[in-house]
């Protein structure tokens, strides 16, 4: 089992193999994404009943919460790649790390703005400097920092190691975001799904929420594969496999 995994890991690390693998999976992933999104949106916007306190405004949850989860999930993907970069100097991990950053930044931005649009009617303000909101804003800056740092260093192998360190150090913000609503008094509501107890949300709302969360995960893979393919082709433009691919 372990041997098989090591073999698989090595094969995945080879740019031509990953390029082909990602290309063949993209159409299927797009189908899965479409099905999940249509089901999630129908469940969330049509089937789920209005909330007893927040009325229809709570429907922002089906964008806001999955986007917020993705903002943290993608950061963990980035930091894991950072560790692989530092330990094994794997080129593909560098590419995945840097290609994840703009997608993570997009989801963080989406979580912040949709939260703001939900906060206005429910809390009476677009923004407060409370722990949850501030730590999520710091996450956005971490993503932008990774993108900026990578762009600022010309030698790409050095840049890869530098952003790996930044991504790993920034990891400390992730538990702060998650537990901020417990550790500090916050205007933001506490966790309703990701807690040890039973989720305190009715299944008619939980099911579309989870569908949207899955749909965003699949979307991340699609967007990541797209970016990684473009970046691999650019980086390896002088190598033999790229030549064989396009010389006709």
């Amino acid at each position: 089992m372990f041997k098989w995994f090591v073999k698989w890991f090595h094969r995945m690390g080879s740019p031509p193999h990953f390029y082909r693998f990602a290309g063949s999976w993209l159409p299927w992933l797009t189908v899965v994404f479409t099905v999940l999104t249509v089901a999630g949106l129908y469940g969330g916007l049509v089937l789920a009943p209005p909330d007893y306190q927040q009325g229809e405004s709570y429907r922002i949850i089906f964008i806001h919460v999955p986007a917020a989860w993705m903002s943290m999930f993608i950061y963990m993907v980035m930091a894991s790649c950072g560790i692989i970069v530092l330990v094994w100097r794997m080129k593909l991990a560098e590419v995945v790390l840097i290609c994840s950053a703009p997608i993570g930044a997009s989801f963080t931005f989406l979580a912040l703005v949709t939260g703001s649009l939900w906060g206005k009617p429910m809390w009476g303000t677009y923004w407060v400097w409370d722990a949850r909101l501030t730590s999520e804003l710091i996450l956005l800056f971490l993503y932008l920092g990774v993108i900026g740092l990578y762009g600022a260093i010309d030698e790409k192998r050095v840049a890869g190691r530098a952003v790996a360190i930044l991504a790993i150090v920034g990891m400390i913000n992730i538990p702060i975001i998650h537990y901020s609503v417990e550790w500090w008094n916050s205007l933001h509501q506490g966790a309703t799904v990701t807690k040890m107890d039973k989720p305190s949300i009715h299944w008619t709302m939980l099911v579309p929420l989870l569908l949207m969360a899955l749909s965003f995960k699949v979307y991340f893979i699609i967007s990541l594969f797209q970016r990684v393919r473009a970046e691999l082709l650019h980086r390896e433009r002088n190598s033999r496999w790229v030549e064989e691919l396009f010389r006709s």
Partner: protein
Amino acid sequence: MSMSEFFNMGGYAVFVWSSYGLALVVLVLNWFIPYQQHQQNIKKLKRQYRQETKQNDSSS
């Protein structure tokens, strides 16, 4: 539920629909920008190889 009731979102239409609209824009752009970049890369590489083959043919 009528169509207009659905779009009205119990008076929260502005907040709800701008959230969904923004999500749509962010998701589409995030897919489209790398897609376009990739297509341009491919075009450039194909052109480059075509020119190289031509040069090789004329020199030999």
